[in-house]
């Protein structure tokens, strides 16, 4: 389900880093030896086997990250991102695997389009990448794609991300047929008759600024519907980019009732509120929108208590000229692959709101589990998927630092803490700073 260019595997030793693997319960200063791309030994004073040695003192070595929600803009908008540039950005962000959404031009709704993407990924993907295929043809919301054939071709899951599946009847059929594929169905929950023309969260800030509101209930109503359908059909589903308190509540209830639902949340929804829109900066315009402080608190709580098990960047590159317009004319979406860890470390871990271990788990094992991917592990015999983090690094985020072809980051100009020093993905060193 994941594809990357083939390259020689790494032989190296990371010496003396604080090794944290929350899923394995490891938190100790250790040496880690990688032989031919596989973790071969953990311990102190390890024999280097004549491998290259990386000094890890003062740094954190963790399972590399998995991003379940990326827009690679290929095919169709290669000026904004390519598989090569997007996966290079992922490598710089500490990711060992990413999943790309199918709302490209054309939409990934046929085995032919998917097959071509997989070929490209095999030729140029720095980091293993999986491709979701559309639930409905052309994401039109009327006709199911040939999901079984798409799964056989290598689809990592199914989503109409960007547009909701408006028809409840069709949504039910997708859940039923999805069982045949064994792949996860991922849903963008938005009741379009409530959100239409909406520019930002509906509340005191939108009332003052004059923007048409995109109310929380536009999301939570659809979350409730889809959870009800999943419960009825006894099928799993994954909820994309939750933003509202009510959605978290609905998910918590459904999970308690035994519904196999997972969910993700973005760094920007965890770090910002609708107050940020007062800047009228098009780089704080996203769908779903930034919401109120109480929503943000609920998302952070949901992430901590495991209601939400995945952090997803919803990395959405946009051409500079498309974002350099009045807020209302700008497209939704911001980039995030290269800044996710720093954003969460700066805004949540440093202030003491969320433990580092929780962030590391929700950025790696959590999202992998949601899609049935192998969880990155720091254990003997596991493929080397490692990220080396410098928690003390403090730096300013500027346009020049991005490997992505687009620079529409909400963090531009901000000083953050927490840097990625090195990324090993599937046994290969893909990034080193």
């Amino acid at each position, binding site marked *: 389900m994941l594809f990357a260019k083939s390259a020689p595997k790494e032989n190296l030793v990371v010496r003396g880093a604080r090794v944290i693997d929350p899923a394995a319960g490891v938190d100790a200063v250790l040496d880690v030896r990688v032989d031919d791309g596989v973790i071969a030994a953990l311990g102190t004073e390890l024999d280097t086997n004549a491998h290259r040695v990386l000094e890890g003192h003062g740094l954190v070595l963790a399972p590399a990250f998995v991003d379940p929600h990326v827009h690679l803009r290929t095919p169709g908008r290669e000026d904004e991102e390519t598989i090569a540039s997007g996966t290079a950005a992922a490598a710089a962000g500490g990711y060992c695997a990413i999943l790309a959404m199918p709302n490209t031009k054309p939409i990934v709704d046929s085995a032919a389009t998917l097959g071509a993407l997989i070929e490209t990924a095999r030729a140029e993907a720095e980091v293993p990448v999986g491709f979701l295929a559309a639930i409905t043809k052309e994401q039109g919301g009327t006709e199911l794609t040939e999901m079984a054939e798409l799964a056989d071709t290598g689809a990592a899951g199914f989503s109409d991300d960007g547009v909701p599946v408006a028809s409840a009847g069709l949504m039910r059929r997708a859940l039923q047929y999805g069982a045949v594929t064994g792949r996860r169905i991922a849903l963008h929950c938005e009741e379009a008759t409530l959100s239409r023309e909406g520019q930002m969260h509906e509340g*005191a800030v939108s009332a003052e600024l*004059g*923007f048409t509101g995109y109310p929380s209930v536009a999301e939570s109503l659809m979350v409730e519907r889809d959870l009800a359908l999943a419960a009825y059909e006894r099928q799993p589903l994954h909820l994309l980019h939750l933003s509202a308190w009510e959605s978290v509540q609905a998910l918590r209830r459904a999970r308690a009732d035994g519904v196999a639902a997972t969910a993700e949340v973005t760094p920007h929804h965890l770090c910002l509120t609708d107050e940020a829109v007062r800047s*009228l900066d098009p780089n704080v315009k996203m769908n779903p929108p930034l919401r109120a402080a109480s929503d943000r608190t609920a998302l952070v709580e949901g992430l901590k208590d495991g209601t939400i098990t995945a952090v997803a960047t919803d990395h959405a590159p946009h051409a500079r*000229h498309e974002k350099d317009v*009045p807020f*209302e004319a700008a497209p939704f979406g911001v980039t995030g692959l290269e800044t996710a860890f720093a954003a969460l470390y700066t805004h949540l871990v440093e202030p003491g709101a969320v433990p580092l271990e929780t962030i590391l788990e929700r950025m790696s094992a959590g999202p992998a589990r949601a899609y049935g991917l192998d969880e990155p592990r720091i254990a003997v015999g596991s493929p080397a998927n490692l990220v080396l983090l410098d928690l003390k690094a403090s730096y300013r985020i500027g346009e020049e630092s991005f490997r992505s072809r687009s620079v529409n980051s909400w963090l531009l100009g901000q000083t953050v803490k927490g840097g990625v020093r090195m990324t090993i993905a599937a046994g290969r060193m893909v990034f080193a700073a």
Partner: protein
Amino acid sequence: MAEIRVMREDLRPPAPPPKRHFISIKDVTSDDVERLLATARTFERSLEREVKKLPTLKGRLVINVFYESSTRTSSSFELAGKRLSADTMSIKSSGSSVDKGESLKDTAITLGAYDPDVIVIRHPQIGAPHLVARVTEAHVVNAGDGKHQHPTQALLDLYTMREAFGRIEGLHVAIVGDVLHSRVARSLIQGLALMGAHVTLVAPPALLPRGIEAMGCETATDIGAIAGADVVYVLRMQQERMQEGANYVPSLREYAARWGVTPERVRPGQKVMHPGPMNRGVEIDPRVADHADALIETQVRAGLVTRMAVLYDLLTSGPVGVKTESALEVA
């Protein structure tokens, strides 16, 4: 006056002052408003002279860029510039490169190349004046950006109320109608709150934005709530901003019957204002619009002098607190 300014600058380290704009009422203080209203008043007196033109802004360039249709605002800005002897240019979106798909940023950079002192912009999208301020060196005046702000309208309304009542503080103003789509309402609520007036919004539920009370006003859905107000400020039903099938109200007929400002609903002496253009027979009964208690024509006259004051204030950058009678002395 001019000498005093030179002396003051001599005492300061040389640093270019930050570019001043007039984009949102939120950006100004009550002192700023008082200064602008006083300046407008001096200009009103100057317009009573036989020769109405003042040489104050001679050699200055004011470009008016209008991406939306406008009669009052565009004509008053143009005349305000001319009355102060500035060179003025007016550009409308139709018939310009905008028709050819030029972006706002590129249009702004193009106009900025002429080194205008002021760019006055009206645009259907929130944030357009901020973008122009970012990419040009001009002082930017917001003549209306989407549903966000229309600060010179608020200023002329404050001026009108001050002239009619001799004060703004303590006045009770009822703003009636389509608040949701109204940049006029947003600027005016902030302006009135800034100057210590009391505001009640009266509208059908779907036309009252959720959360608007946080701006410092009360809300009501019953037209009876206008009874105690000193001023009834009637908003235009903005049919052009209402999407098909949105059903904010069932019909204009029902709106007029339930929320229209009619002679039966206002009391003698209660002043009525409207930013124009009016939908007579919808939000306002013609008998109210044409009554002696209506200040609608006064508002139009106030628009000219307050916009003169804004241009003057931005371009002369007088320090806050300067006695604004100097406007005429300089002239």
